[in-house]
């Protein structure tokens, strides 16, 4: 990175900005996608484990809980930039390189897992303990209890947390851009920051805002769809035969639908 500053010489023409940003956006999506898959696969079991090692859990074990809790807290307490630098030897050992997407995925996964484990733990904590008792007395095995009486009941809350986590990972991917991981962050740093190219800077900001807003919207939708008393209204809307596509008339049908739900519940 040259660091050459000029307000005329290096500016990318507006017409070329999409060609610059689209592949970068693709890189970001790939990076975040891979990381979130790993985070989900590791974080859910790890969160369930730490929740059930705690006092009152299925495998209550104070020592194991303390150790695991400390490890996760350490992972959570390092600023991402520091974590990324600190584990370079480990990253190189796993991926054989310390630049590019593979190199970014390792520290991002570690930070994401630590984050998501706490989110899962917190979500499970809000599920009534009585349900675990119900499942146990119905003859469930520990795995069945965790699956049906803990995780399944916490799904909307976990999806809400997953949304937050995904957005945090988009932000981390931008930080990872500084070690040449590619993606939107890399473009923002090399063109916008180093070369004072305000056009590109602005474009990356717009892309990031749209990306984050889209993730949030999808997350909110999913949370609604997986919460029975919220989903009832959504389902009724969907079931309507293809009416006018504008949202106003369908919103008008929503309120009587929710009203009738509450009436039948009373």
């Amino acid at each position, binding site marked *: 990175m040259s660091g050459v500053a000029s307000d005329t010489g290096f500016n990318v023409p507006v017409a070329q900005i999409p060609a610059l940003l689209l592949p970068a956006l693709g890189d970001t999506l790939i990076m975040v996608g891979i990381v979130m898959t790993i985070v989900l696969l590791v974080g859910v079991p790890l969160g369930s484990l730490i929740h059930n090692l705690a006092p009152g859990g299925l495998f209550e074990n104070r020592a194991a809980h303390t150790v695991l809790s400390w490890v996760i807290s350490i992972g959570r307490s390092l600023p991402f930039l520091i974590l990324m630098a600190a584990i370079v030897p480990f990253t190189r050992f796993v991926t054989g390189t310390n630049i590019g997407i593979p190199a970014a995925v390792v520290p991002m996964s570690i930070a994401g897992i630590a984050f998501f484990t706490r989110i899962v733990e917190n979500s499970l904590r809000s599920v009534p303990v009585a349900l675990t*008792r119900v499942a146990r*007395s119905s*003859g469930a095995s520990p795995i069945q209890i965790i699956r*049906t009486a803990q995780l399944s009941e916490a799904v909307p809350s976990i999806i809400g947390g997953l949304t937050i986590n995904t957005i945090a990972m988009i932000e981390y991917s931008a930080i990872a851009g500084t070690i040449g991981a590619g993606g939107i962050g890399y473009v923002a740093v090399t063109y916008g920051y180093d070369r004072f190219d305000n056009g590109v800077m602005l474009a990356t900001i717009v892309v990031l805002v749209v990306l984050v807003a889209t993730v949030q919207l999808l997350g909110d939708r999913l949370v609604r769809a*997986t*919460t029975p*008393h919220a989903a009832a209204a959504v389902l009724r809307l969907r079931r309507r035969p293809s009416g006018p596509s504008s949202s106003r008339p369908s919103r008008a049908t929503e309120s009587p639908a929710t009203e009738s739900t509450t009436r039948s*519940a*009373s």
Partner: protein
Amino acid sequence: MIRVDQLRKEFGHGAQRAVVLDGLDLSIEAREISAVVGPSGAGKSTLAQCVSLLERPTSGSVIVNGDVLSELGERELRVARRRIGTIFQSDGLFSRRTAAANVALPLEYLGVTAAESRRRVGELLDRVGLADKAVHYPHQLSGGQRQRVGIARALALRPSVILSDEATSGLDPDATTAIVELLKELRDDLDLSILFITHEMDTVLQIADSVSRLDHGRIVESGRVLELLAQPNSSLGRALQPRRGHEPAPTGATVWEVTYGADPVPADWVGLLAAGLDTTVSLLGASIETLRGATTGHATIAVSTPRHDLVEVELRLLGLDATRVGSEDLLALESEVAR
């Protein structure tokens, strides 16, 4: 049938050791509903946890149909739990599952095929009168309906014992009555032994054949409900049918507390007593009800006669047990004077 034998449960170690259940004995025959009452902190929920095999007793045993279940290993215990159906307080439903899916839970854990499970769930929901609510979520059901789903779920694996842990607590009176009637019906149809843990005395009168009072981890009093009610000096009987306030007595009359005994009492006993003693009898307060064909209850009356011994004899002949109110002071005074 289920038997609890010398059940003892301690929590903690050393100086912090707390004895929650202290050598408890209970026995419930098939087709019997036995209630356990007691103040909060008496050990009711620990008893429930031990009977449903969620907590291991420190010593003593839980025996269902002759099998000692409390000594099994963890894996066998999981299987044994299926022989006892538990009905929880109304918050025990899974919020993201429909009524049918909630009832199907124990079948799912057992690994029953989907078709078989669907058939059994339909049967169970029909049995508790919720066939039309199968696809409703818990938030769409009333408290009473939710509890019916809980009952259907407890019955899913055809247990011979039902443990009801505060199942009617938090329900309105109508819903409580409906749940009580349903449990009695199920007891008759399925030959169930039901252990009904509650703190509601009214519900005990409605449902239980026998009742035990738990206090500080021990059973301090127990017996058949009707027998306890017929005993005027039973504190559990009095707790089940508490005496409430009564009118003040007319001057010159003595006040008597009468209790319906085990023998039938003529309905016109107040008139019969007045005729027999040839005096006036005033009814100051009464609480009388018919439970399982027997009339039970108590009354406070005022009788204008100095012949206290005769009042007692007449009342006894009518099948009523009588105690003169404030009589101890007066008797003491009389004996002083006589001396």
